[in-house]
């Protein structure tokens, strides 16, 4: 038995060798840094290092949980994350389904290229465009005036932050995100469609009865993975977009951590909040996985 396994490994040694870089990558960049979380329980300064910094227990956790801003950043994180999920998760699925129905090949390819393109635009440039469009003399205000509205500084409106954030996020990710669904769609057995046609199903009914059930496992897995990042929103985009006037709706856990950690140089506080965040994220993903396993056959593990 054992020699058989060894023999198999030797036979497939090239495949195993290809695994090594990824193994090393995860150890070096994802497991070793985990140990750095101990600074959450210290009053850490880089000059002293982990070994010399004094221990403070749960002080920084307490500081965060009792902070005036705790509820606000938590609320904003959940709101922004859920909005992105509700709008951003179905968007690539819908795009993929629509592209799947297009029969003219050059048209389909053109649309695909156009929707992928924003993915390759750097975040800074993408937000730069958004800032230009949103300025007082920018495109968006021109459109507002065209419809009889007043020019307003759009990026300074707390109430507009979430829609603008979600819109920008979807614009940049929808095309790229649809690729995985398109590949799932291409694996559907054409005989299923033939059978449905013989049963008299029209295009719409074929989609509901054949297409969607066939890609449902893909959707479920991606959804579970997505829930694991519920408390992690795209803070880089937010940092580029927000200002004190929109903190009310834009300041999320990660941006708060960024300001305290890297601007105010309070590394331990940031580490404590980051750790807390990860624990909650992990709990959510375990929960979602358990629910999915119970109600459907699809789960991550």
């Amino acid at each position, binding site marked *: 038995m054992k020699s058989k396994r060894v023999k198999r490994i030797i036979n497939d040694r090239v495949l195993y060798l290809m695994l090594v870089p990824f193994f090393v990558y995860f150890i070096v*960049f*994802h497991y070793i*840094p*985990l140990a*750095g*979380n101990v600074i959450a329980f210290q*009053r850490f*300064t*880089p*000059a*002293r*290092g982990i070994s010399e910094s004094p221990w403070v227990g749960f002080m920084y956790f307490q*500081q965060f949980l009792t*902070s*005036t*801003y705790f509820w606000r950043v938590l609320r904003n994180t959940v709101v922004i994350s859920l909005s992105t999920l509700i709008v951003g998760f179905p968007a690539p699925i819908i795009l993929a389904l629509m592209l799947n129905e297009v029969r003219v090949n050059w048209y389909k390819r053109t649309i695909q290229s156009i929707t992928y393109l924003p993915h390759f635009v750097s975040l800074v440039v993408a937000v730069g465009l958004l*800032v230009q469009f949103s*300025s*007082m003399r920018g495109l968006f205000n021109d459109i507002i005036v065209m419809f009889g509205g007043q020019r*307003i*500084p759009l*990026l*300074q409106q*707390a109430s507009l932050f979430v829609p603008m954030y979600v819109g920008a996020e979807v614009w940049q990710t929808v095309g790229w995100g649809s690729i995985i669904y398109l590949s799932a769609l291409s694996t559907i057995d054409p005989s299923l469609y033939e059978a449905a046609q013989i049963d008299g199903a029209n295009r719409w009914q074929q989609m509901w009865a054949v297409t969607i059930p066939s890609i449902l496992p893909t959707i479920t897995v991606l959804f579970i993975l997505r829930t694991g990042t519920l408390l992690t929103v795209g803070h880089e985009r937010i940092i580029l977009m927000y*200002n*004190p*006037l929109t*903190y*009310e709706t834009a300041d999320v856990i*990660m941006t708060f*951590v960024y*300001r*305290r*950690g*890297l*601007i*105010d*140089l*309070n*590394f331990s506080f*940031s*580490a404590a*909040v*980051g*750790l807390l*965040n*990860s624990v909650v994220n992990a709990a959510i993903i375990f929960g979602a996985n358990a629910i999915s396993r119970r109600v459907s056959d699809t789960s991550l593990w």
Partner: protein
Amino acid sequence: MKRFLCLLALSVLIATVVSAGGRGETAAPGDGTPTLSYYRVPPGVVATLVDSWGDAPVWQEYQRRVGINVEFVSIPQDAAQHLSLLIASGDYPDMIEHFWGNYSGGPAQAVEDGVIRPLNDVFDSYAPNLSRRIEEMRAVDPGNVAAMQTSEGDFFGFPMLRFDDETLVFVGPQLRADWLNELGLDVPETIDDWTEVLTAMRDAYGVAPLSGTGPIFVSRNIFGDSAFASAFGVVADWHVVNGVIRHGFAQPELRDFLELANRWYRDGLIDPEFVTNDRQVFENKIYNNNVGAFIGFTGSSMGAYLNTMANRNPDFDLVGAPYPVLRRGDTPMFGQRSGMVVPRATAITTRAANVEAAATFLDYAYSEEGHMLINFGIEGLSYEMVDGFPRYTDLITNNPDGWSMAAAMGMFTGISAGGSAVQDGRYALQYLLSDPRQANAVENWMNTNAADHMVVGLNPLSRDADNFGAIWTEVQTHAEENILRFITGARPLSQFDAYLNELDRMGFERARGYMQASFDARR
């Protein structure tokens, strides 16, 4: 987050190592002179001319004279953030020039954190020139010496010093003089004058005339240096009134200022984008005649704009207005006035292996010869002595390569961006105040009581630093955010008392107490 931090730290580390490696090779190998690394932010224009400030003629000469080689760390645009990341990496250059008061917890905390080393013994042993300057400062006002020290009494860096009045005042309200002329209005003195002028500008030119940059009302935006707030007795920084330390964030009179600002904002007198304007956007507005008034520098605002616009719009003209007051004839309580000691100093870090070399290098700038080199460059090249007055040559004022004066100053002198040295009044007279409009503006701005109220380099005692830091980061965020909301009307002023209560609950009074204790300990 951890991973994010690590990656950032790592990339900075790599960048530092790579750049350090590249530069290390330029030092002549094996000549026995030590090589030190130096973090010092050059004037912005210099970055377009040389890779590193160390390649500029002034620093080449400086290194040659002192016999110590220095690698200047090259610095991206966002210097503050870059420095944060550098400190996060734990791998510092030997010397860092910085506003150490901005270090979370103040310079005392930077010493306590083991980032920089206290320099009392170093000054005694290796810095005779600076030590002499310190005694001169003490003779003028003993408070000056306290400003060079941590709250524990340690010297923390090689300071920037100013003895001459012309170098102390360099920021203030500026208006379009040509617009005032066309409208037949005088330079405004009172808040009511300002309302009248701004309204007239709005009506005549169809712009929201008062503009500025940046989200924070204490920094260089339209409320910079409390220009308008101080008319109401509010100063957006720690200051002293009759021995009591105060901060404008939590003063009841703040409401009066906010009412004015909110009215101006509603009436379209303030640029609605002042929160999100960055420098480039703001300057484009200036150049496109969208701005009628702003708070700015003598050199890098007034001088630069006048220069740029000379070709584009010959009518463009600026005038410096006095800091506004409520009643004509009053003296403004506050306005920009630098202390004689600028809380910006080169510290020697704990990573420096050769402290003596670092101190010797830095001390030279305070000697007679070093002083002339830093302020005026090389005699016969960038300046000539004319009747005992060091006059800049054409190389600086009318550069043959077509460099602006700011660029030439940045290459041939080490003073125009400030820094560890004594800033000479004769430099200011020729550079900042060469235009009579600039000299006139500074004269207007000098007339304030700021000197009575300012406290330079006040930081909490190190035993309080942690508690103060935890309170103050929250108070500051809350105040800055809400002051902007009050101004733009996002929060109605009827909630002003609620705002004061919120600051109270966050521990404002305790934070103030820590500052008071530090101030009392100083005396």
